[in-house]
Each structure stands twice: as C-alpha cells, then as structure tokens.
C-alpha cells in the first residue's frame, strides 16, 4: 500500500546547511551534501533541499549545489525549493537532479505562472511551499521576503484547485526549531481537504508526528533541525511510529555505496 513519508529537510543559507529557528535565527550545521549523504544512508523517505537566500544571490535555483549532491550518488528522492522563478528554472533544477520542485515566492508574485510549470514537469513534480500562521483564528500566509502575512489569496486557491500542483508543504514557520512547536490548528483550518499536505515546522516528537500522520490528508511529515541532534535520528523516529504505514527503518550493515567490490 502507499506509505506515508518522513522527509528530511536541509535548509541552506550562503551555501551552508543551517538550523533555522522561526525563519529568523540560524545556526551553522555543515555541508549540505554530507547531510544529504547521511540522510540517504539512514533511509529517510525523501530529502527536501530548501535554499532560503536565493533572492540575495540574484534568484534562480542553486544548480551547482544540486549537481554536488547528485555526484555523490544520492539514492533518495530529492525535492528542491528556493529561487524557482520561471518554468526554465524548474526544468533546469530537475535536469540538475531534483525529482520535484517547491515553489514559494513565485506563488505570491504569479501563481498562474507557477501552474505553467506543470506542463513540462507534470503536476506530480510540483509542491506549493506555504509558510502559514494562525492570526485571529484564520490562516495567514507569509511572504518571507517582506515578512508580511496576508490571507490566502484567491488566485492561489484557484491554482491549487486546478490540480496543477500535487502537494502542499504547510510550514508552521513561527514554530520552526521549537520543540513540539507545530500548531495542528494549521491543518484543521486548511480549506482544501482533498489536496495532500506535508506538515513541517516544530515537529520533533513521535507523539506529534503520529498525530499529524494519522490525518488522512497528510501524506508526509518533514523534520529538519531535530534530525541533527542524535545518531540514527530517522530510524529512531520511524521505530517509535510503528503501526503507521511507513517504510521500515534500516540500519545498513555495510556502506553499500562505498563497499569495495
């Protein structure tokens, strides 16, 4: 049967993987390609590579970084988000090794252009990245560039309803990096029950992940900071989520990618 997914998030700033707290404070972690290689060996179900400063770097996806990851023989599906501003940006990111593309700022600027990405890549390759918070009992949608939150725009909801985008990465940005911080009201208030959701931001404990993954419209849970504090963090989480339709955790006997034949 189709399994739910545990996604490992690598947040990248100035080419360096970081821990990100509340979309504001950052702590250095290391080389994105080394973290990706580690998540691959741990058996995470998907890797989300999130470059958060592409605008400062003049826009466009970080193709060099994508190629660096690919060269190391990454055998885990890769989702890239950060700086995708056009159809060609999306196509080039897939050519550089990403299975799927996340769109964030473009949804604010031109949601219909975002829909056009579906033509060459297929809707199954597109994810809408929506940093949300609860404001006076309603969902507020953040534009991380201006740091302003507004209600969900009708144009956005139309694009999502059109089926041009297969999944929504729903980011509780205010609780990013906060232990057990994820606010489940975001899921409850989400207006489109049929669109598959990925929950992200402040998910650290098995109890939270179970609660989130048990919701029928939630197809995946993404964890970033908290995968970096323990050895075998992915396997540990998966073992404590026994009973959920999740791919089993594995502890690789010998490092097959490096095995000396």
């Amino acid at each position, binding site marked *: 049967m189709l399994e739910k997914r545990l996604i490992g998030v690598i947040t990248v*700033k*100035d080419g*360096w*993987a*970081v*821990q990100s707290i509340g979309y504001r*404070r*950052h*702590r*250095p*972690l*290391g*080389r994105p390609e*080394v*973290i990706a*290689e*580690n998540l691959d*060996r*741990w058996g995470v179900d998907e890797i989300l590579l999130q470059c958060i400063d592409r605008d400062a770097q003049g826009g466009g996806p970080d193709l060099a970084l994508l190629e660096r990851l690919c060269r190391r023989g990454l055998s885990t599906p890769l989702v890239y988000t950060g700086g995708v501003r056009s159809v060609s940006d999306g196509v080039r990111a897939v050519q550089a090794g990403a299975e799927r593309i996340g769109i964030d700022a473009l949804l604010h600027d031109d949601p219909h252009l975002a829909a056009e990405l579906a033509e060459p890549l297929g809707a199954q390759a597109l994810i809408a990245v929506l940093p949300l918070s609860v404001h006076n009992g309603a969902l507020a949608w953040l534009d991380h560039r201006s740091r302003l939150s507004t209600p969900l725009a009708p144009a956005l909801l139309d694009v999502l309803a059109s089926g041009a985008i297969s999944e929504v990465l729903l980011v509780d940005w205010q609780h990013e990096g906060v232990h057990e911080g994820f606010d489940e009201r975001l899921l409850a208030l989400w207006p489109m029950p049929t669109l598959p959701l990925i929950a992200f931001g402040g998910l650290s404990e098995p109890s939270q992940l179970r609660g989130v993954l048990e919701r029928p419209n939630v197809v995946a849970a993404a964890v970033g900071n908290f995968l*970096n*504090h*323990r*050895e*075998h963090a992915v*396997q540990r989480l998966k073992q404590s989520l026994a009973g959920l339709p999740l791919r089993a955790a*594995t*502890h*690789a*006997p*010998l*490092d097959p990618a*490096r095995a*000396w034949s």
Partner: protein
Amino acid sequence: MAALMHCRRCLYTSAHPLGLMLDAEGICSGCRVHEEKDRLDWAERWQRLESLLAPYRSRSGETYDCIVPVSGAGDSHYIVHLVKQRLGLNPLLVTYNKYFNTSLGIRNLANLRIRFDCDLIQQNVNPHAVKKITRATLRDFGSDYWHCLAGQTVFPVQTAVRYRIPLILWGAHQGLEQVGMYSHEDEVEMTRRHRQDHDLMGREADDLPTMFDTLKESDIWQYRYPDDAALSAIGVRGVYLGNYVRWDPKAQHEQMIERCGYRTAAFARTFDTYDHVDCWNYMDLHDVLKLHKHGYSKVTDHACREIRHGRLTRAQGLALVRRHEQAAPQHLDKFCEWLGLDRSGLGFLLDRHRNPRWWREAETGRWAFAGASTTAGEAAGVTMPPASAVFEANDVLAHDGIDGYITIGKGHP
C-alpha cells in the same frame, strides 16, 4: 564568495570553516550560544546528566560503565575527574597514538592513568599506513592531522562496539563552543555525519584512496566508522559533558594543575599554555596550515574563548592574535624527519594550500597576509594578557629532555 563579516563581540568571521551566522546586531551564533553559559541552571542540567547516565551503570561489575577518549592534553584530566570522581562511573579510557607525541604529553597521560587509576587501551596503527595517509591528506587538502582526528574520533566508537560498552563520554562539542552550532539545550550527541563533515573536513577513510594515488583499503580500513547495524545493535551513544557542565577550559585546567598534577608548557604561536601540550605539531605545523587555509589560527580560537568568558576585551584579544599569529613554527624538522620530507618540499606543499582569499604572492616567495585579523578593527596597545587571562607554564614540551617524537614512552617519574 559572500562578503567577509566580522562578529562585533568576538574575533570570528563569516568565513569560519565550521560556518558562522551573524544576527541583526552583528553578534555571531557562537557568542549567542555562549550567553547560555550564564543563563542556564547548571545544577538542573547536572541532574539531567545523572538521570541520563543511570541506565549505563553496570551493576554486575562484569563490564565498564562507559568509554572515555583521552590524550596527554585537551580536557582529558578534567573529563576523567568528572566521570570517575563526580559521577562515580568505572570508565575504560581509550587513546589513539598520533605519533607526534611530546614527552610532556606522555608524562601527562601517565599521570592521568596513575591519579585516576583507570584501565587504558591504546591503538597504534602501523606507521607505514599512517605516513602513507598523511602524505595524501597533506597533498590533497593541506591536512597534516587527518589521521589523528580520524583515529581519535573512531577508535572510541570501534571499541564501544567491540567491547559492547554503548556509552561514550566526550568533553565539549567543538561546533557548539566555537560557532554555536547547537544550543546546550539541544543536547546534541555524537554522529558519524558531524565527524565526516567537520572533524575530517568532509572526507571519510574511503574517500582518501583515488585512482591516481597508491593508498589501498588495507591502509585506511582501521579509520572506517562502524556500520549502522553494529552501532544500532550495541546502542552506541556519544554524550557531550559540555552540554551539562558549564565548560570553561581555562578554569578547568587550572583546577587540574593544582589538584591532579597536570603540567603545561608555553607556545610561540599562542598565549594559552594549557592545551595541546601533548603534540609537537598542533600549535606548530598544523597551526601554520590552518592560517594558510582559513586565514586565522588557534590563537584566535583561544582569544575568542577568553573574550566570551570576559577575561579579555576584544581589543586585547586582537592584540594577542596579532602578536602570535605570524610567529615562526619551530618544529618542522621533526615532521620532515618523521615523514621523510625535505624542508623545501614541505615548504612547497604548505604554499600550495595558501587560500588566495587570505594570501597574495606579491613576488615569488613573498606572501602578503590579508587574513581575518587584518580587517578586525582596533587592537589594544599592550600585547601582554591582563591578569585575568594569564596562563601558567609549569613545564616544557621536552619534559624529560627528549626533543623529538616519542612513539611509546614511560612518562614517569
């Protein structure tokens, strides 16, 4: 290349090899995490440590409670003091022979064994492989120290698997202490990823042999991290005491000097006399390579630490850095003799690893330095450390007169 940004409080820059983030006020992530040292309730954190370690105490006495990696310097004396005397655990000490040993380091390790009455196992990888590896790492990425870092960070983990002792206790987490990689409250633990990424500069043992050099699997296999299946079967876990104890290396060393006979020595390239006294290279050839590659050296690490602990102002720290940073290395001959290099050949290798971001060869052989300290702002006039930051040297590196590498030494009396 992103523009070079300096922290306004300490002397680190955004080019730090472990990564460094500066916030809106221009204060770096390392200084922000250091603030936790004066905010957290360390009595409560010690209780957290006690409860975390409780399940690992062996009731049967049939095995050790934990593994403690040690050397003739570093924080080894203080760590074993904490583990054995304050936590009452029965540790198995492990050490990797880095071969660059000073007799003072040999003496300190012997002192450690006697004072704390601990069993110790020492790994000596055959020098043939060690030298082959060192030639390759010096050549390929300007590291004379890869084998030491790889051995020191993997032998304890291999021993944990072989001896079925799941718990390894380390001192402070370098990433947390220097660049605020984690908060103390993250209680970060040992991971293979961090070792590969930072301790080993991105290169695990299997990354060293290439098609075009002569390294073989039989040279590097002893530096491989145990596989995930073995680690998981034993439940190996590396805990950092620095997450539960307010870590202050200067104060700790002084306590160990006074109470446990730890001995120290002066260096040309830094004012700190407590750390790295067990190695002819760390504060010498290794420190020069660091300056070539990263545009700063160990004296900057020591200055930042002391600035953050309030024992140096930023200006005083910068004055000390500028005073020591270009001091000539004194023990290159020892390394050349050990590895069979000619001084001219070593010079060539060293120059190839000067990062153009910090070094310009105005004319052949003459290098202009443009490292972090040159753009760090105002330094204090006086170059002697104030009373608060005096480091006592009660011995010399050639403790018993032997001015060379010691493979295995007695270390007593």
